[in-house]
């Protein structure tokens, strides 16, 4: 193939090699059969160069990461694809939006199914991003040098919540209207600028066409753009921070006769790039516990992808996305309930609008942002529920349980006029 030739290529050779030379111009390397080619897959393919050439064996343990972050990413991709398709039939108008929902259900081919997929993926993404955060906390994976990636993760959680909030407003059913009404009223309780924020969000003094248009633009353009950018930085930093945090293994300790090379945390890079640029070469000196990304990491990712897509397809076949009555600005549904993940917030709001809607959530978010800068011990990283992190894990777990309790109360124990009812 690569033999240098002095004579002109004849037309006959050009014809004979035609399809394969197109293929080799696109994919510079054939399917890998040795380690050099395995590293070249990650190097020379645009879509694979996000991956390191080699990954540590321990980061591939399913029980360690549970693939939660990756599942969130795949759900986001499903949301982008189904969302763009839904945009072809949706009109952000208070008079048309609801009719378009009925059209999706009744006349558009696969319309109902696409809406189901979009809605259930959104619910799944909120849940999985939250669980991913819990995983990172309970394994201490936000410790130095990964503090800032945790902060980015908290921002991504907030963007996910805001995307889902702006999303369920768009059908312009009863849930949508009263969720905007309540949501922007909560924003109005913010000190000093609350009224201004509310007016900017609604684009008007009352909830109507302007508000729908604003939330639509936020949902389909602004927030996804922010999300894509931050996800890219989030992934980039995984590698710059030295790969995923990982459980230690006994075998990683060097043999007595081997010269140890100091490896600074955070500067450890693998493969050719590290060889060229990094100050530390570890070839042959440190016991190597890494495997090639191709095929080990890629197969794991493919498995998570197939799992995620299959679950969403099955759920969308079995359950229909909720759609309430068309908007009636005179009569809020009684009780007017948000989707499950906001019911904890709604329960808190029913005690005090300011403390439940602004005060407590702000304190929680600030605490989340500061977590890696407060909890700075380096012990117990890479292990689930490490004994050394008992205090931090207990505090975090209590807050998670508290949130779940509030969600359960809001979901099952609240009836008309938000009075306490028993579901039994």
């Amino acid at each position, binding site marked *: 193939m690569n033999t240098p030739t002095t004579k002109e290529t004849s037309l006959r050779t050009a014809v004979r090699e035609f399809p394969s030379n197109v293929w080799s111009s696109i994919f510079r390397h054939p399917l890998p059969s040795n380690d050099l080619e395995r590293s070249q897959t990650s190097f020379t393919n645009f879509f694979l160069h996000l991956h390191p050439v080699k990954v540590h064996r321990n980061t591939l343990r399913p029980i360690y990461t549970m693939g939660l972050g990756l599942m969130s990413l795949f759900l986001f991709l499903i949301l982008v694809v189904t969302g763009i398709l839904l945009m072809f039939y949706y009109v952000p108008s208070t008079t048309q939006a609801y009719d378009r929902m009925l059209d999706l259900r009744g006349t558009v081919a696969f319309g109902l199914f696409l809406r189901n997929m979009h809605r259930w993926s959104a619910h799944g993404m909120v849940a999985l991003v939250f669980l991913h955060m819990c995983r990172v906390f309970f394994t201490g994976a936000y410790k130095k040098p990964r503090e800032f990636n945790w902060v980015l993760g908290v921002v991504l959680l907030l963007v996910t919540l805001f995307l889902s909030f702006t999303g369920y407003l768009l059908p312009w059913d009863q849930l949508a209207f009263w969720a905007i009404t309540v949501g922007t009223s909560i924003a109005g309780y913010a000190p000093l600028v609350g009224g201004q924020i509310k007016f900017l969000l609604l684009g008007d003094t009352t909830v109507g066409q302007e508000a729908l248009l604003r939330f639509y633009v936020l949902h389909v353009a602004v927030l996804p753009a922010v999300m894509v950018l931050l996800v890219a930085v989030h992934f980039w930093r995984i590698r710059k921070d030295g790969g995923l945090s990982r459980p230690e293994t006994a075998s990683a300790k060097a043999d007595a006769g081997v010269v140890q090379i100091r490896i600074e945390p955070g500067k450890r890079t693998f493969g050719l790039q590290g060889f060229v640029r990094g100050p530390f070469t570890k070839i042959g000196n440190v016991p190597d516990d890494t495997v090639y990304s191709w095929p080990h990491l890629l197969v794991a990712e493919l498995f998570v992808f197939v799992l995620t897509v299959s679950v969403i397809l099955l759920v969308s076949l079995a359950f229909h996305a909720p759609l309430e009555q068309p908007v009636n600005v*005179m009569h809020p549904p*009684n009780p007017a309930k948000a989707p499950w993940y906001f019911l904890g917030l709604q329960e808190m709001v029913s005690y005090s*609008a300011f403390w439940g809607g602004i005060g407590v959530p702000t304190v929680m978010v600030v605490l989340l942002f500061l977590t890696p800068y407060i909890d700075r011990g380096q012990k117990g990283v890479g292990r689930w529920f490490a004994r050394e992190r008992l205090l931090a894990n207990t505090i975090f777990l209590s807050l998670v349980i508290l949130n779940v309790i509030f969600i359960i109360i809001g979901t099952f124990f609240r009836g008309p006029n938000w009075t306490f009812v028993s579901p039994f």
Partner: protein
Amino acid sequence: MPLAVESRKVKATAEGQMPRRRLLAWLSSVGLFGSAVLAVISDLVFFKPRVTYSPSARFGIGKPDDFPPGTRIAREVDRVCIVRDGNRMAAISTTCTHLGCIVSISDTGFACPCHGSHYDQDGTVTGGPAPKPLPWFKVSLAPNGELEVDKNSQIEPGTYFTV
């Protein structure tokens, strides 16, 4: 090492010029940063509509005779409750001060279906999470003999308009 020596030399020979260079750099940074701030502010101005399309906050509700003494009618579209007590009239908001739901008229005053706030006949909070009483709006008599409610001007609760 040679680099450091060189730079020190430059600093020494060009002692008089460096502050000017630094000043220019400083000024241009201020300029760039200032433009960024201005851009953000102009965005905020852009997002704040100067004209809104919602119905006017001042609207006529009909002649005083349309409301016999003892009337309590909720005008759902306008979100006000028109009260007539003898020859005194008032317009009380029916938007819950908690989170903006519409309160309905109950036996004891007003009740909110969303989070269970209760108000008495004058809109004073009697229970639930509502932080403030229901506001009262200014009622006036227009030249054409119709009553007019202005939702932009809130008045002290208990201030009636005498017809």
